[in-house]
C-alpha cells in the first residue's frame, strides 16, 4: 500500500496552488446586471503524487466538479496555478492544454451529458485512439473490444448508442474512454455512484490495479465515503469552495477532526437495517450555505455545533494538526477529545 508523505509530496505530478474559480451571476434579459459572484472554488492548495489516489469529498455544491473542471482548464481560472508534470496549465495556450490532456483525463459526473448521443460506443472509444495515433485502423477493433472488457462491458454492444444503455452501462463507457489513452492522471467525478455494488467493486479493483501497475494518479470524487475510504491514500474534505480537512484516508474517516467531517462521517448509511434505524447521526442545523453569500469567518459556523464568536470573525486557515493531518478549524485542538 503506497503511503505518501503528507505536506510537500516528493514528486507531485499535479499541483494546485491557491486555485480560485468564481462565476459571475447576472440577471436581466437585455441589460445584464451583475448581482453576485459564486465563489465555487476559493483558494485550494493540493498536490497529488505519482501513483497516489486522492479522494475528494464534500457537500453537494461545494465545488468539487468545478475544481475538477479547473484542473482540466475547462473553465477559466480566476486565480492561482495548476501545474501538471511541471507545466503550468493556467498560463498554457489552447494547443498546449490539448496536448497535456492526453496525460490528464476526466470521467464526468453525468455520463449522459458527456457522451455524444450520435456516436456508437465503438466511435467514442476509437476516436481518441486513432486521433492520437495510439492504434492503427487494423487493430482498432481488438483495442476497443479489450477496453470494453476492461470495464465489464460485453464487446457485442460496440455498435450501440448511448441512449440504448442503462445509466451504469453509460458510466462504464465514459470510464473506458478516459482509460483509452493510458493517461498519467485521471480525475474521476463520481465514477461509480450510478453502478450496482458488484460493478462498483469491479471498477474499484480496476482503478486500484491501474494505479499499482501503471503508476496512475487518481483524483477520486465521490459521495460514498466507504468507497472513498477503500480506494484513497489520502482524503480531502471540501466545504464551500475550500479544503477543510486533509489526511490519510482511514484516519480521516475513523477519527475526523473538523466538525463538518464529523457530521459527514456520522451520516454514512450502514447496509444493515437494525443499525441504520437506530444509529445516531449528527444532524446539521440549517441548510447548506450559498456560495453567493458565504458566511463570514469560518463558513461552517452557522451550522457548527462547536462555533463560538471567534468563528464568525476569523477565517480558519488549513493548518497542520496532529500527525499527517491538516484541519481548517479554529477550535480543532479544544474539541479534539469531544
Amino acid at each position: 500500500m503506497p503511503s505518501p508523505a503528507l505536506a510537500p509530496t516528493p514528486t507531485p505530478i499535479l499541483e494546485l496552488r491557491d486555485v480560485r474559480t468564481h462565476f459571475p451571476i447576472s440577471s436581466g434579459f437585455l441589460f445584464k446586471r451583475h448581482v453576485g459572484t459564486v465563489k465555487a472554488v476559493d483558494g485550494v492548495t493540493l498536490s497529488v503524487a505519482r501513483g497516489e489516489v486522492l479522494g475528494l469529498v464534500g457537500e453537494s455544491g461545494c465545488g468539487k466538479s468545478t475544481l475538477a473542471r479547473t484542473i482540466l482548464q475547462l473553465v477559466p481560472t480566476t486565480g492561482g496555478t495548476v501545474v501538471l508534470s511541471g507545466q503550468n496549465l493556467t498560463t498554457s495556450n489552447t494547443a498546449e492544454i490539448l496536448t497535456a490532456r492526453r496525460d490528464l483525463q476526466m470521467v464526468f459526473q453525468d455520463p449522459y451529458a458527456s457522451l455524444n448521443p450520435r456516436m456508437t460506443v465503438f466511435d467514442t472509444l476509437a476516436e481518441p485512439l486513432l486521433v492520437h495515433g495510439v492504434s492503427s485502423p487494423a487493430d482498432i477493433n481488438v483495442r476497443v473490444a479489450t477496453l470494453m472488457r476492461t470495464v465489464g462491458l460485453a464487446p457485442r454492444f460496440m455498435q450501440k448508442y448511448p441512449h440504448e444503455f442503462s445509466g451504469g452501462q453509460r458510466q462504464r463507457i465514459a470510464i473506458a474512454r478516459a482509460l483509452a489513452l493510458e493517461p498519467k492522471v485521471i480525475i474521476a467525478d463520481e465514477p461509480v455512484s450510478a453502478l450496482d455494488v458488484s460493478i462498483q467493486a469491479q471498477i474499484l479493483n480496476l482503478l486500484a490495479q491501474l494505479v499499482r501497475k501503471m503508476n496512475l494518479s487518481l483524483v477520486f470524487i465521490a459521495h460514498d465515503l466507504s468507497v472513498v475510504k477503500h480506494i484513497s491514500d489520502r482524503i480531502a474534505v471540501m466545504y464551500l469552495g475550500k479544503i477543510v480537512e486533509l489526511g490519510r484516508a482511514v484516519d480521516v474517516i475513523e477519527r475526523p477532526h473538523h466538525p463538518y467531517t464529523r457530521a459527514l462521517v456520522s451520516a454514512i448509511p450502514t447496509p444493515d437495517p437494525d443499525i441504520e434505524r437506530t444509529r445516531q447521526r449528527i444532524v446539521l442545523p440549517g441548510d447548506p450555505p450559498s456560495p453567493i453569500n458565504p458566511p463570514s469567518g469560518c463558513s461552517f459556523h452557522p451550522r457548527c455545533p462547536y462555533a463560538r464568536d471567534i468563528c464568525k470573525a476569523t477565517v480558519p486557515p488549513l493548518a497542520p494538526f496532529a500527525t499527517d493531518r491538516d484541519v481548517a478549524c479554529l477550535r480543532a485542538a479544544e474539541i479534539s477529545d469531544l
Partner: protein
Amino acid sequence: MPLLSVTDLRTYFHTRSGVYRAVDGVSFSLERGETLGIVGESGSGKSVTCYSIMGLIPTPPGRIESGTAVFDGVDLLHCTPTQSRAIRGKRVAMIFQDPMTSLNPYMRISDQLMEPLLIHENLSKPAARQRALAALESVGINDPDKRINLYPHEFSGGMRQRVMIAMALITKPELLIADEPTTALDVTVQAQILELIKKMQRELGMAVIFITHDLGVVSGLCDRVQVMYAGRIVESTDTRTLFHSPRHPYTRALQRSIPALQPKGTELYTISGMPPDLSKPLPGCGFSARCEHATDLCRATTPALAAISPNHTQSCLRVQAGDIL
C-alpha cells in the same frame, strides 16, 4: 386493494441488433404509504420498469409487449390520454436518475417549477412562484429567490437533483417513483432528502418506489425490497429479512460485494462473468452463467418466484428444491 399493482409486465426494445427483453415478466404491488426498494444489477430493467409505468418508453424501439399496471383502478398501460394526464405527472410523479432528462436546459428553474401548478392547479403566477420558492427551500436550496431564475447548467449536479425532487413533490403525489434520487448527493444532504420524503409520506400517505444501488439507504428507508436481475425479479421480501437472510444466490453475491463491508486495501469481492445477453433466448435462470450453484436444470428451466416463507419470495430453483440453504 393495493395502490399500484403491476402484473406480468414485459417491455422489449426492438433494435437493429435484436430484440432486447429489458423487462421480462415483472409483477409486484404496492400499498398506500408503503416504501418499496428496487435494487439489482445495472441494466437489469429497474428504470425501464418505472418508465413503463410512467408511459415514458420511447416507441419505437421500445414496446410494452404485455402486462397491466393498475393504479387506483386505472390500468396505466391501457388508459385514455385524458386518464393518463390526470394521473401521470400529478398523482404519480417520478424523479429521474439523470436530472437533465427531466429538466429543460433552455428554461429557467422558476418556469419549470411553476408550470405544473399553472396547468394542473390553476394557481395565479405570484401564488405559483411562492409555492416554487417554498419547494426549493424544502429541498435545502438556499437563496431560492436568487437561484430560482437560474438555468439548470448553473447548478451543481446535486443541486439539479434537488430541483428535480422539488419539481416532483410540488404536486403532492400519491405515488412517488424515485430512480436513484440521491446518488448525486452528499450523505448529509441525502439524509435531509430522505427525511423530506419520509415526512411527505407521513403527511400525505405517499407511497414510494425507490430505486437505488446504495444498500445503506435501502436499509434505512424501505419497508420491502425487491431484487432484479436480467429483466426479472429474483427475490422480494421485507428489508430486515433481505439483509439478514437473503436466499437467492444473486442477492447473496450482491451483499458480499458491498465495499463498506470489506477490509481496505484488499481486492473487493465481485461477481465473476457478465450478465446475459438479453437479446438471446434465456431458457433458464438469468443468473445461471455466473452462479456457483448452477446445475443443468438451472440452465434449462425458467424459474418463477415462489414463497419460501409468508412474506418472502425468491426464484432460485435450487433454493426452492431445498438443495441449498
